[in-house]
């Protein structure tokens, strides 16, 4: 039973990373309750969206009273990275029905992507679909249980603790993880500074503008680097 073996190998591969997944999911549950979501809404969002960073971003925008469409756009932009994961994993997740592909795609997370890809690169003799399914399902289950626990705990955290400050702090740690070279640092600086300067614009549209300009700055910097490298 090759398939089962690889499913459990994927589940085992996901175990170490749960140390990071569980507290992050619990924080997102606490955060949801702190911005006024009910327990049922918290769990519903966690299952429907299942993308922690974008959920936290929506909570931050809810707490500052941003318009609906800005929340949706911001969440989509933050989740654009999934297209990269999806394109990279696609060759390994073929020979499946559209429904099976849809299920595996729904469970895609930063961690499932990272674990599966690093395993596939070093191990050729593996059933990719079952390994990925094992890892992704383990992370999904751990995330949902932890989010539920967080939502229950959230009711115990008084708002005077300033727990909303946990949003920018968690984004900060994720942001430094995304700074890999000079163009990504420039993208972050431009995105951050434009967001500060454009804070006064109506409907919080400055946020979307800042993200777009940050991406453009990084793209152009890399473009310029490559051209200089080529002409040298």
């Amino acid at each position: 039973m090759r398939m089962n073996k690889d499913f459990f190998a994927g589940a085992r591969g996901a175990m170490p990373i749960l140390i990071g997944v569980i507290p992050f999911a619990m924080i997102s549950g606490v955060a949801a309750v702190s911005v006024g979501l009910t327990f049922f809404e918290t769990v519903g969002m966690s299952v429907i969206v299942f993308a922690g960073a974008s959920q936290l971003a929506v909570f931050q925008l809810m707490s500052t009273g941003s318009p609906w469409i800005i929340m949706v756009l911001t969440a989509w932009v933050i989740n654009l990275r999934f297209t990269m994961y999806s394109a990279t994993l696609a060759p390994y997740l073929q020979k499946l029905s559209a429904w099976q592909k849809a299920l595996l795609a729904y469970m895609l997370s930063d961690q499932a992507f990272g674990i599966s890809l690093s395993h596939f690169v070093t191990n050729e003799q593996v059933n990719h679909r079952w390994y990925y399914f094992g890892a992704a399902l383990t992370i999904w289950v751990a995330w949902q249980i932890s989010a539920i626990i967080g939502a229950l705990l959230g009711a115990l955290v008084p708002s005077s603790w300033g727990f909303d400050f946990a949003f920018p702090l968690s984004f900060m740690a994720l942001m430094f993880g995304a700074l890999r070279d000079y163009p990504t640092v420039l993208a972050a600086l431009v995105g951050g500074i434009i967001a500060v300067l454009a804070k006064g614009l109506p409907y919080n549209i400055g946020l979307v503008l800042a993200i777009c300009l940050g991406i453009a700055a990084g793209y152009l910097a890399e473009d310029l680097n490559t051209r200089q490298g080529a002409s040298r």
Partner: protein
Amino acid sequence: MSAELKWLLFVAIGLGTFLLRFLFIYLFGKIAIPDWLRRALRFVPAAALAALVFPALTHPAGHLDLSLHNFRLLAGLGGAIVAWKTRNVLLTILVGMMLLWILEMVFGI
């Protein structure tokens, strides 16, 4: 925000996010991801996260405040050092929140 609008928000974000996850797994072999898009996507996390972090520190009460009375800015800078050195989400939250509470206790009203 009404309950209906909240659920509509979750479904809109969830559907869009699902399509982002599903698109290239489903279309594999039928369409290739264009090179310029792949390169631009690389900068999304850095730009988006910074755009969320910076104003949260500089505009804690909705207006620009770069003074020493802005405890969130000070605690955030402390948290940034931890984030930079460790990239650990939990540790950054822990240190940043502690700094904020200490500043508020010692210098707050």
